[in-house]
């Protein structure tokens, strides 16, 4: 028997998320959990395991593999699948792969559109998923603050900010027509701090890239890019150097900036975050275009 501490904010968030996850499993025919392998996905997966214990997860996980993820992410993903006995679907936009779509020759925006957004839409359509969990949080970005927990998507997966359903109490409207779907964000009310605290309290495994370590990096546009394999084209005169760095978010390695850090434990990461002066999304190259860029991407079907 374990002592409880319900009144802490993390316990309250945990119970709220479990309620949301169970609601989806009960009300939808064919849900899927989008698994990005990052820390938010790690927390979401942990909550899902809690929601259905002692049963297995009643839905599969899906990873949209752009083929440019950090190698350590893929290793970690496969370890989790084995350890927790999960069903995993890995989807890659094969047309994009055949055309060798990459962040360098195609630019980050087109690359993201083809290998992430289009790939996701393909997979959702092919498997006829009627609900998809995502690990997005409302504190991440301005347009997310107004996002519902159950976010309605039309038949072509687009999001209309003017046509979202009001959400009251913890009663969620899960009704859709054939072909339509709902994206569900069980971590909506978590902040970056909550995520890290919870990972620490619950001992949740995360990809080692979050911890500082000497890694081969090159400096580009004021940020450190890790040379994860020999596919990264080096500019003239660019020589990878070893630096103590870590990542605050994870994605495609050529588009994910590292920060110089010596934080190699969760406690140190947490302390570092408390004095941090930039948001975690600064490391993401795709958000910089303009303030409304995320909103635009979401309308197009980006998660």
């Amino acid at each position, binding site marked *: *028997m*374990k002592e*409880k*501490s*319900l009144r*802490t*904010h*993390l316990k*309250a968030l945990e*119970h709220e998320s*479990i309620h949301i996850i*169970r*609601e989806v*499993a*009960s009300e939808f025919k064919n849900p899927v959990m989008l698994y990005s392998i990052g820390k938010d996905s790690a927390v979401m997966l942990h909550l899902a*395991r*809690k*929601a*259905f*214990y*002692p*049963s297995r997860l009643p839905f599969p996980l899906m990873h949209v593999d752009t083929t440019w993820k950090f190698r350590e992410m893929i290793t970690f993903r496969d370890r989790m699948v084995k350890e927790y006995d999960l069903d995993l679907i890995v989807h890659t936009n094969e047309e994009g792969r055949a055309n060798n779509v990459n962040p360098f020759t195609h630019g980050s925006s087109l690359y993201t559109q083809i290998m992430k957004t289009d790939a996701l839409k393909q997979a959702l359509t092919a498997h006829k998923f009627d609900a998809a969990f995502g690990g997005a949080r409302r*504190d991440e970005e*301005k*347009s*997310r*603050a*107004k996002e519902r927990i159950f976010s309605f998507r039309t038949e072509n997966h687009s999001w209309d*900010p003017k046509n979202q*359903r*009001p*959400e*009251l*109490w*913890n*009663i969620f*409207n899960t*009704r*859709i*027509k054939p072909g339509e779907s709902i994206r569900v964000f069980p971590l909506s*009310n978590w*902040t970056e*701090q*909550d995520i890290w*605290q919870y990972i*620490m*309290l619950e001992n949740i495994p995360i990809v080692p890239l979050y911890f500082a370590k000497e890694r081969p990096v090159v400096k580009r546009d004021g940020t450190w890019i890790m040379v994860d394999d020999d596919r990264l084209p080096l500019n003239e005169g660019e020589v990878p150097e070893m630096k103590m760095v870590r990542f605050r978010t994870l994605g495609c390695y050529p588009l994910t900036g590292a920060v110089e850090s010596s934080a190699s434990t969760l*406690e140190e990461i947490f*302390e570092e975050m*408390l*004095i*941090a*002066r*930039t*948001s975690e*999304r*600064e490391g993401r190259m795709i958000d910089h275009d303009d*303030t*409304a860029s995320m*909103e635009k991407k979401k309308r197009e079907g980006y998660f």
Partner: protein
Amino acid sequence: MSEQMMTASGALDGGKFARQESRDILRFLTCGSVDDGKSTLIGRLLYDSKTIFEDQMRSLEAVSKKHGTTGDDIDLALLLDGLQAEQEQGITIDVAYRFFASDKRKFVVADTPGHEQYTRNMATGASNCDLAVILIDARKGVLTQTRRHSFINSLIGVRHVVLAINKMDLMDFSQEVFDKIVDDYKAFAQGFEFESIMAVPLSARYGDNVVVKSDKTPWYDGPSLLSYLEDIDVESADRSLPFRFPVQWVNRPNLNFRGFSGTVASGIAHVGDEVVVAKSGKTSRIKSIVTMDGDLPEAEAGEAVTITLEDEIDISRGDLLALTQHRPQVTDQISAHIIWMDNSRMMVGRPYIIKMGTQQVQATVTDLKHKIDVNDATHKDAGKTLELNEIGFCNLSFAQPLAMDTYEENRKTGSFILIDRFSNQTVAAGLVWFGLRRAENIHWQAVDIDKKARAAQKGQTPKVLWFTGLSGSGKSTIANLVEKKLHGEGHHTYLLDGDNVRHGLNRDLGFTDVDRVENIRRIGEVAKLMVDAGLIVLTAFISPYVAERRMVREMLEDGEFFEVYVDTPLEVCEARDVKGLYAKAREGKIKNFTGIDSPYEAPVQPEIYVNTAEMSAEAAADLIIAALEKE
């Protein structure tokens, strides 16, 4: 940025992990309009609590230059406008959720706008909050919108209010101004059930009394807004209420384990307690309370757990577990307040889906008793419809009984939403006022001679041929021909049309949308009785709405309802104008005439389709008979 603010952000900086671990959550909403400085106030709380990072500040500086209203200062209000269109209009038009934390608490802010048309958003924001910060512009004092905000909060069950009396800098931080506003507010708020009302004089733009106490208000001896929010005890009564556990999911990993997963809505239950399934009345004892972190001795309000029972009793999603000594009501008729949230208006008599906890069934508003004016909380004449943002007090009836409490007793088990069956939109939020027990007294009289027996005697399969189409499309003519042919073949039939229904049974009904709904409902019920009597029923009514035609279809058994769409173009109907009605409608002498100033929703998949442009009435009747014989 003022010096005061810099020290303030320093004050919130610290917070090591250990201290933060024991924080709780306060969920509050902010009510007011952009003009009251609401967005500036929230922006100030986020900024001073260091929730805004440098990169976000840089982007804010850029945006401030383009859209800001504060000259060279950074416009904190712009932090909050998430969506492009709103950003350009300079108005927040939806509920947005913001987060910040101090050493003592994590705060979730539901940011809701204050304009008249946004009752829907405020109710949505308030539904999960324990406290409301109501903004008042010190220059303007208590306004109609202040009353509106207070009423909605009171209705939704928010019991703690903070009056943020803003822009005190523009009133020289005058105590007199402050005191007058507080007195005005308290005078009218007496009618509301608030447990606490606190007033804070502040300037969101300059940070006075927001995070730290200002030296400009020496006469004010209360705390700053943030200190107050950090310390106020809003511990909800959920834990002390009777135990309620809505079953979400049946947990069945193998044959040896059968658990019921859900979140405790209220109260507390221990292993060994006797529980009852509200709807079936079956009882058992709690055997274990299971979580991935180990079994628990008890489960209390807010906890998501899995409960196993001593006995194998029938329980599924939608059931509500309670302790045997404190049971919820089980009823299929209630009275309730509903807040209408959709552009398509509520109609008495039209079926909707109700979702209450984990229960979901069909529901109809059977009566609208009165409307409530949100501006002064007075009752208004009801009518039969509710428009977007209107609040009504109604009776509802459900297709099956539901387990519930009143909203006053329990916010979790006394709340519901209504969903439109076609658009699937959430059209209303509802608060249970009380259960009407009439339902228990109406029992079906079991009879020995049933539909099958009556149909067998007549040697036919009873059914309804539902003719729909514009006025003058030829429905009655064709239906009449079909009836003649059926009669000739020895069938027992009856034709319901405007002549024999509108002048008798339905002579109290007009042609408004609501009356049309009721008209069709009654015709449907009569047709159903006639089918029960074994007859083949033909009906010839315009029946312009998909929803009501579907309602009748659902009253009958599968295969009994044949929709016959008599498709005649409006121009043709108007040119025929047998009864001269189109001419009158065009002159404005008849209102709500289908096709002219009232819509006709054509069937998408009728059982039988008749195109009168391509065939005569006689040929159409033959086509219908042929289609029936094929069945």
